[in-house]
Every structure is written in structure tokens, then in C-alpha cells.
């Protein structure tokens, strides 16, 4: 069942300039992205910095204005809804943020942080509220006494778990996770990733997982899309992308992942060298004259690539 479908989504930010600071151009942060998320799966978005991954994610939760295109959530187009109309959907779509430090209000106690969404949507007595919050804390592996603490009393991983607990309280169907572990140390990162997987099973969640660490994405995601300059250049099952990358950008991306086996390092250097020259020689195969990637074309039932 399709839970979320992005159809030719575009998010352009104006660049002002000229004499009267008129809009002279646009940053095409997201420029015609389409993909679907099935209920219960984890879909990964990778790409280099500035490729529009976060912007896509934020557009879904309406943190960004959508320039054009559709965001169909259970068949309703979120992009066309007003602020008021979107409110009921807020329950269903939640976001986990990258920075566990800035995403929790340092002046609020854990109770207030986690209960904030509850207070917006439900009328609960303080004791009910407290109980729910403690339940969720328990789920993410924090002690119930934590409700009276402040964020700075927790480590990065714990904070991230508080953020996750907050996003779970409304029992959302879809969670947008924007690089939820990239600010964390490896050891802590593992903890959070494990949790995300456990929770997915427990609540039957669907994740849109944004990240730049291909190892993490591969570990987490069933399917993934590779973004490059606001466009998807390749999409498919994780194995397909990793084992059989088709787009030159995807190839380079994968070749750049450092390998844990010291023995193969020479080969990888050679591979990268080879890809660089391949990139130069086959550029027009992948990008049109404006340097824009072509539209996706299916090469198998699950695998799509942006080729001429």
C-alpha cells in the first residue's frame, strides 16, 4: 500500500538581487522529484551535501513551501492544504532531526518536550499525560525519572532518543528522519539505529530516512534514492544500488565509501581513478546540456536510473 507519493515535487528558493531586490533567480533545491513509500518500509535518500535531501523531507512536513508538484499522503495532496487544514496530518507525519542538541528546547524538561504534541492534540489530565510520557521513555530505553530532567543532562544518543519519543507520542504513520545519527559518535549511532529498527516493527512505522552515510543507509533501508542537485538520479532496492549502480554519480558515491578492509585499498584507489575518467568521458550520457540529470527510466521493475 502506498503511504506517501511525491509527484514531480519542486521546491525553489528565491534569490534576490538587482536594483530593487527582486527575485532574479531560484535555487532549485528540489527540482522534480517523484517516488513512493510503501507502508512499513524504510526509504533512504542519499546524496552529497546540498543535493536537496533535507529540503525534500521538510517539504513533506510543510517546513518548506512547495513550489509545485504533489505530496500525496494516503491519497490527499498535502502540498495544496492550508496551515489549518494540515493540522490533522501533523499527527500522522513526524520528523526526527539531525542535531540532538538543537532539536530539543534546552529550557524545557523532558516531560514538557515529549508531551508537547499531546497537548496540541489531546486533552489529558496531568497524570495521564505523565503516564504516557513515561511509557514512551521506557520504550526508548530511558528511565521514567528522566521526565524531570533537562536535555543537557543527557548524552547525545539519549537526547536523540528523547526526540524520537516525542515524535512517537502521536502514533504517527510516517517518520521523516533527517540524518538522525550523523552528529553522533559511532558507538552511540549504533544505539539509535537499533532503536529505530525496533520501533519500526513495534509501531509498524514507515521511514523516510535521509542520510549521507551510505553505510548507515544500506543498513537501514529497503529501498533508496540517490539525489544529485535536486534531482533523483537513481532509485531502487538497496542491494541493487550497492551491487549494481548504474548512474555514474551513484558509482562514484559508492566507490568513495571507505572500506573496512585494509587489503582492498589499492583497488579502490584505482577504481576511483577509473570512475573519474569515466565520468568525464560519459558526462552527456547522464546529464543534459544544463547539467541537469535526466528523468528516471526503469531498467527493471524496481530499479530506475536517470539516463538519456
Amino acid at each position, binding site marked *: 500500500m502506498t503511504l506517501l507519493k511525491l509527484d514531480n515535487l519542486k521546491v525553489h528558493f528565491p534569490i534576490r*538581487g*538587482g*536594483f*530593487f*531586490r527582486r527575485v532574479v533567480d531560484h535555487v532549485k533545491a528540489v527540482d522534480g522529484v517523484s517516488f513512493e513509500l510503501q507502508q512499513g518500509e524504510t526509504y533512504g535518500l542519499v546524496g552529497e551535501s546540498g543535493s536537496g535531501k533535507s529540503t525534500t523531507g521538510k517539504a513533506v512536513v510543510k517546513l518548506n513551501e512547495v513550489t509545485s508538484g504533489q505530496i500525496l499522503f494516503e491519497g490527499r495532496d498535502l502540498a495544496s492544504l492550508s496551515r489549518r487544514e494540515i493540522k490533522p496530518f501533523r499527527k500522522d507525519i513526524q520528523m526526527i532531526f539531525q542535531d540532538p542538541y538543537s532539536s530539543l528546547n534546552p529550557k524545557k524538561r523532558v516531560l514538557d518536550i515529549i508531551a508537547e504534541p499531546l497537548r496540541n492534540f489531546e486533552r489529558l489530565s496531568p497524570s495521564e499525560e505523565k503516564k504516557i510520557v513515561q511509557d514512551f521513555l521506557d520504550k526508548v530505553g530511558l528511565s521514567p525519572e528522566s521526565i524531570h530532567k533537562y536535555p543537557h543532562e543527557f548524552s547525545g544518543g539519549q537526547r536523540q532518543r528523547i526526540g524520537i519519543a516525542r515524535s512517537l507520542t502521536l502514533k504517527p504513520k510516517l517518520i521523516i528522519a533527517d540524518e538522525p545519527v550523523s552528529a553522533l559518535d559511532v558507538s552511540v549511532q549504533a544505539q539509535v539505529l537499533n532503536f529505530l529498527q525496533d520501533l519500526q516493527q513495534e509501531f509498524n512505522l514507515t521511514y523516510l530516512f535521509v542520510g549521507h552515510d551510505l553505510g548507515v543507509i544500506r543498513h537501514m533501508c529497503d529501498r533508496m534514492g540517490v539525489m544529485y542537485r535536486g534531482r533523483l538520479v537513481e532509485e531502487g532496492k538497496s542491494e541493487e544500488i550497492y551491487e549494481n549502480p548504474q548512474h555514474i554519480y551513484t558509482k562514484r558515491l559508492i566507490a568513495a565509501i571507505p572500506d573496512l578492509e585494509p587489503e582492498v585499498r589499492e583497488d579502490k584507489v584505482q577504481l576511483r581513478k577509473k570512475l573519474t575518467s569515466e565520468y568525464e568521458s560519459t558526462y552527456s550520457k547522464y546529464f543534459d546540456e544544463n547539467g541537469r540529470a535526466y528523468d528516471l527510466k526503469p531498467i527493471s521493475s524496481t530499479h530506475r536510473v536517470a539516463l538519456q
Partner: protein
Amino acid sequence: MWKFILRRLLVMIPQLFLLSIIVFMMAKAMPGDALSGQEINPRANPAELDRIREELGLNDPWYQQYIRWASNAVQGDFGVSYTHKTPVMDVIEDRLWNTVFLALVTLIFTYMLAIPLGILSGRYNDTWVDKTVTGYSYVGFGTPIFIFALIMLFVFGFALDWFPSGGSVDSKVDEGTFAYVVSKINHLILPALSTALIATTSTIQYLRNEIIDNKIKDFVRTARSKGVPESKVYSRHIMRNSFLPIAAFLGYEITGLIGGAVIIETIFSYPGLGQLFLSSVSLRDFSVVTAIVMMTGFATLLGTLLSDIILSAVDPRIRIE
């Protein structure tokens, strides 16, 4: 760059327009007018005063007066000062230069004091040098400027008699000579120094904090890692970056001094804009009052612009296309 300046100048037009209306209405709202000073002169003829009022248009509704005034002002004609019986611009001109000189010299003194002290205090923070400088700047912060200026006047103007106690120049020297310039400067030193000694304290603290902030920046560490000697680390890296915000304040600072000259000019009987403003307010010489406020307002706007330009000149990160 030119586009930017031009745009900013354009933006000033509505601001100046609004300012002019406010200024004009406020001037008119002050009780009395330029002729009321004559109303205690038993020989003055009230009917005659009314005739003059009528003739000067003082009896018209304010908006008519405003339109008349504004349309002339646009062409640089701010009318005639009633008290001085001469075009306002003539009255203001001399005083303006005096005030500008005073402001410049004050600025020079301020920076002459602030820069070395700020650097010392920032570089050797938490040492006795820093504590002394900081102590000084706190005392400066808590001292009302006019009391300080009065004391300076009495000590250096009279008790020691090192400096003249009023005016802008010695009447005996002739314009254009070297002695004239010396005399002008001699008259400026005391008021400028008095202001500088007090006003400098905020700059000192500012500079000190900047230096302390910059000292621990990564690029300073990079410089050290290159083997740059400590003195050069300061002069080439820390100081340049610390002066940045100060340079940016220059524009504001000048206009602040011009606008705030009222007190110091009063104390040192220095014939500048501030003093002219005060006397024009009490004599209800509206044309002068409005002109001065408009000019100072304009100067402030220009100062802001200047600050932005300076900033973009010294800081490559803020490039104005």
C-alpha cells in the same frame, strides 16, 4: 556597489520625508514662535508683530507651511532664520564645520586611546594591566560626561591655563595662516579630549572583548601552527579581525558625535551645531531647528550607509555587488 549605494539612497527618501513631517509638526507644536521673544518688549508693537507673522506665513495651517517649506527644502533651501536674519544654510555652515571638526578630533582621540588600551587589555586579559584598563573604563562608564568636562575645563582651562576656555578660534589670528590652524586645533583639544576620555571606554571594552573572542579562533591557531611569531599573530590575524566591527561602527560613531555634541559644545562655549540647536529651540527659530534635525537625521542615515560600505570594504565576506 554603486547600485547598492543608489538603492540605499533611494530608500532614504521616504525616511527623510517621514522625518521631515515629524520634525515639522513637532517644531510647530512647540509653544510660541520666533516672534514671541518680542512679546515682553514693551516697545514692540503687537499689531506689527502680527503683521510680520502674517507675512512670514506663521499663521497659515501647518500643512501649508509644511508644503511650502518642504518644496524649498528639496531644493536645498531651508528658508531664512528669523533670529539670524539670514538663510539657514549660511547660519548652519560655519557651525557645521566646527562640529564636524570637533567630531573628527574627538574620534581621533577616542581611537588613539581605545586602540592601544583595548589591545593591551584584550591581549593580556586578566592581568593587572587589563584590570587597570577595565577599571578605568568602568569609571568612565559611570561618570556623567558633563561633570567630567566641567572639571577638565576648570583644571586645564583655568587652573593650569593650558587651553583656551571657549570659542573655536582665537580672534586675533588671520584665516588661512598656519597660526589659524594651530589656534583652531588648540580650541578643539579640550572638548575633544573630555569627550574622548569618557566615550572611549565603550570602545575599549568592545575591542577588548573582540580580541579575547578572536584570540581563541581556529584561524589564530592555524597561524600559530605555521610558526608565525606571536607579535605577528596579533598584528596580522587577531587585530585585523577585531577592528572589523569597530571600523563598521565608525559611521555611526561620527553621526553620534555630531548629534550628541549639544552638551560638550554648551560647556566649552564651542559654536557648533549642538549649541545652535539649543539656542534655536529656545528662540523658536523653527527654520534652523528643522534644518538641523533634518541634517543630523540625514547624516545618521549616511553614517549607517558609510558603516555598511566600510564593512563591505574590509570584510570580504560581506560583498556588495
